[in-house]
């Protein structure tokens, strides 16, 4: 997919070749692989992994991707109608988050970024919780019946990767057979918080998988401005760990490579960096207008290779899917989504003391006066509201 050119600061990523003589030898060699099972025409390349020959499994994937996309659409609608705050759509990235979610075990820990809706749903986070979070309510990260050790959505870019390295360190120290899994975008790979924990993961051989959603954009900044490296996967070489690319629009490839990497980590063989290549089909968030910077041709091209259609076509071709099933799925999803929205919208507001009561296990004496100030203030406001206006 052609990326728009920004910069007259040109770049070339070719390594300079050098004459090797007696005085020079090759100290190390590396390569990066790319995996794709279903090509952009939904044709199978080579042989599918065994598990993927079970069409029920692929249906499960398909259902989750569809649910995610419809949920995502609804979330945007909620924002547009003033019922929710700024929201980052995951349009186009559903295969990555879905494949990852199913490849993880419940006892693994996820340190997500903000486009992992599907992974979170698979792990037991509720749709209404995601809405609550973007609706400006901390309880959206409480997950009372969900993945109790997963980190909440992380806003400061890439910092969750360092946390995941810490989680993996804890697992390693305790000899646990669990894996810390973290995700980020392509822009995130420019930050120290990407490289530092990647390097640590190598040095300590942590049970950790880092999955980069390479959607070609960091808000308005195209990948070529982020980095001159031909692949993001090769950044793993800096850490001495395996790095590989997968087609992020091919859920079979995503699941397979995530599964392999996670089980490799679980068995003590160390971390893996996976670059899943996709395209951001949406605006960066509902606060963004991508038409300012994204060439429409690139977007049109990207729609032709998007992940849901790809699997749908495959299931169709296999005679496993039809319009009736599709309609049933859609209405099933919509029912669930509407329930979640209802539950979100009817969630009573937090009480004001919640500003204070979760900051420390025990609120320090020095803060009680401030806490009381707020309670008094709200009490006065409430009285004022309740008082019939003159």
């Amino acid at each position, binding site marked *: 997919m052609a990326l728009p050119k920004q910069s007259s600061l040109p770049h070339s990523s070719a390594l300079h070749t050098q004459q090797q003589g007696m005085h020079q030898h090759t100290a190390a060699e590396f390569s990066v692989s790319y995996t794709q099972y279903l090509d952009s025409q939904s044709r199978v390349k080579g042989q599918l992994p065994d598990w993927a020959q079970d069409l029920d499994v692929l249906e499960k994937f398909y259902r989750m991707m569809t649910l995610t996309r419809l949920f995502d659409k609804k979330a945007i609608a909620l924002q547009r109608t003033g019922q929710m705050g700024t929201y980052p759509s995951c349009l186009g990235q559903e295969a990555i988050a879905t494949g990852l979610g199913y490849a993880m075990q419940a006892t693994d820990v996820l340190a997500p970024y903000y486009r992992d809706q599907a992974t979170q749903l698979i792990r037991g986070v509720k749709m209404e919780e995601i809405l609550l979070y973007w609706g400006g309510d901390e309880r959206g990260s409480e997950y009372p019946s969900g993945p109790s050790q997963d980190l909440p959505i992380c806003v400061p870019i890439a910092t969750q990767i360092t946390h995941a390295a810490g989680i993996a360190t804890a697992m390693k120290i305790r000899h646990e057979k669990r894996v810390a899994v973290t995700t980020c975008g392509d822009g995130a790979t420019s930050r120290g918080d990407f490289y530092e924990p990647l390097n640590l993961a190598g040095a300590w051989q942590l049970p950790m998988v880092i999955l980069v959603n390479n959607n070609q954009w960091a*808000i308005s900044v195209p990948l070529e401005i982020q980095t001159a490296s031909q692949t993001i996967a090769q950044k793993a070489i800096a850490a001495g760990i395996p790095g590989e690319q997968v087609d992020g629009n091919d859920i079979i490839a995503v699941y397979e490579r995530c599964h392999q990497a996670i089980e490799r980590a679980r068995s003590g063989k160390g971390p893996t960096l996976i670059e899943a290549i996709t395209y951001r089909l949406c605006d960066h968030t509902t606060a963004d207008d991508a038409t*300012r910077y994204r060439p429409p041709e690139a977007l049109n091209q990207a729609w032709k290779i998007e992940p849901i259609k790809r699997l749908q076509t495959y299931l169709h071709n296999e005679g496993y899917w039809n319009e009736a099933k599709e309609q049933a799925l859609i209405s099933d999803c919509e029912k669930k989504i509407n329930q979640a929205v209802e539950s979100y919208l009817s969630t009573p507001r937090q009480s004001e003391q*919640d500003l204070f009561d979760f900051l420390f296990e025990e609120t320090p004496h020095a803060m009680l006066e*401030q806490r009381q100030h707020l309670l008094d203030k709200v009490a006065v406001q409430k009285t004022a509201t309740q008082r019939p206006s003159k």
Partner: protein
Amino acid sequence: MTTILPLQKTLVEAVNLALSHEMRRDESVVILGEDVGVNGGVFRATEGLREEFGVRRVFDTPLAEALIAGIAVGMSTQGLKPVAEIQFMGFIFATVEHIACHASRMRNRTRGRLHCPLVIRAPYGGGIHAPEHHSESTEAMFAHIPGLRVVIPSSPKRAYGLLLSAIRNPDPVLFLEPKRIYRASKQALIDDGESLPLDVCFTLREGSDITLVTWGAMVNDTLKAADQLQQNGIGAEVIDVATIKPLDIETILCSVEKTGRCVIIHEAARSFGVGAEISAQIAERGLFYLKAPIARVTGYDTPMPYYKNEDHYMPSVQDILDSAEQTFDFVRKAS
């Protein structure tokens, strides 16, 4: 080619105007940051600059705040005047090392041989129902750094004049833009390149009963409170600190000498905030002017809550009123 007709501008437009003015005037000014190029900044502060000045003077960086600050340090030692945007103040923490260890020390470290004429701009503050980490006000942390100036405009005119000064200043300046009032109102502005001084407070309203000291987006709320106080018969003097550091304590002291009462208003968490320093300097230099305790109306010592509870956190006009009246009444009771 600067126009001299007054234009109606919002605060963020005034920022844009100052940037383009100074880029036209001074070739060494360059702009860098995340999404400042084609996109013109997520708040459009740099809109149109890429088109006018080209990619060599207006460029997007990789997503790395330490990098942005650190290359600004390097560029500035070469005589460029980088104006770096940090997208939101909540993402400024990674820059602290380069600011505190290098930008603010390079001149001192080299006995004047090298210096860092850079500006770091960041939208700051809450009240716009933004997501987590998009509403921070941590100016106090930066004001404590020796060698750094911290400037916060609160109107389009002051944004224009102070940003010009910040860019022209040969030493590093942190320029914080109160995003809540980015588009709150317009002011007639002449793009004449006139800068405003970086070492004075602005007295926005005179009054003889109480001094209200504030900055940033709280200035508007404070002015509203002052109007209301007037109706209650209390004359409030309103001071926009504008340059947090170096602090113009004289203007504040003169006012407190006159009024005998002081309320300091800021949105940032109360404890160890900028208000504390202002209060401490009054307690040092003007203790016996005071007819009532100095009060602070501030955010709580909590993170900014997510937006549904944001209003609980933000100091309100009512809070300012309550505190000012209490301060005023204190005297009446005591005397």
